[in-house]
């Protein structure tokens, strides 16, 4: 991936600068850009999805409050990533203290994390629906035309850039873009009824 990493970092720097000059709406763009990555990252520590989203919100709010201290020495996402990991670990410690009289420090957060992973946070209905969603995604990919299946597989499973996929498939980059897009649309088409049924909003 990352055909445009420098463009992406440059855009982040511009958006941060706008926020630093008081344009709060520029921060909305940064939230949209990174919300999925941050929630996925936090969810590695905080297993309950709802709690993970609360922690991820805290991450963005902390980042906003501290944005004046961001100097651009590292990429914005690197800076945000550090805030996310620290916030998630602190959250684990706070939760463990609520449930225990033992003193836990940040170094033991990994142990707490492992314990929390053992907890079953989902209802059987949610688990069943999630399983059905995963099965639908896999089935749809299996049933895609070969060129679309290969393109989406190289992109998602192998993490190849569009240029690398174009080389591997001996076709123009534009064709790769189109194949990956059509594959995603096909999955989306099959998935949408399930999401409506499951009240995913």
């Amino acid at each position, binding site marked *: 991936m*990352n055909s445009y990493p420098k463009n992406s970092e440059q855009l982040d720097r511009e958006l941060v600068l706008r*926020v630093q000059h008081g344009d709060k709406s520029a921060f909305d*763009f940064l939230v*949209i850009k990174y919300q999925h990555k941050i*929630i996925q990252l936090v969810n590695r520590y905080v297993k309950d999805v709802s709690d993970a989203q609360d922690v*991820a919100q805290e991450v963005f709010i902390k980042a906003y409050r501290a944005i*004046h201290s961001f100097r651009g020495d590292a990429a914005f996402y690197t800076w945000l990533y550090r805030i996310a990991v620290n916030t998630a670990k602190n959250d684990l410690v706070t939760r463990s203290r609520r449930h225990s009289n033992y003193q836990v420090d940040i170094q033991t957060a990994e142990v707490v994390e492992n314990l929390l992973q053992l907890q079953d946070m989902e209802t059987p209905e949610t688990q069943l629906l999630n399983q059905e969603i995963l099965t639908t995604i896999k089935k749809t990919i299996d049933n895609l035309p070969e060129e679309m299946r290969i393109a*989406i597989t190289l992109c*998602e499973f192998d993490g190849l850039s569009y240029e690398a996929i174009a080389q591997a498939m001996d076709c123009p980059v534009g064709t790769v873009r189109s194949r990956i897009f059509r594959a995603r649309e096909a999955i989306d088409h099959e998935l949408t009824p399930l999401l409506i049924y499951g009240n995913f909003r």
Partner: protein
Amino acid sequence: MTEKISRFLDDDLSHDETLHLLKTITEQPDLKDKLKRYAAVSHAIKTDDFLWISIDFAMRIQQEIQQTPIDGLPHQPSDGYLLQ
């Protein structure tokens, strides 16, 4: 525009395309939902875990920061979208 959402997920958009897409997404809830579904599917393919972001995730952050001053800066109202 939906193809650009697909490309956005794979970091395939240029600076200007990304900025334009982000601005459009904030104005069109349908596109925001599309990004959410694409991102959830992408994560599910990689991890076998379907992670769904609640509808009010970004909204709650937005509400919070409207009342939150930046550390070291005086409170300022939003100037709106400066870059078109």
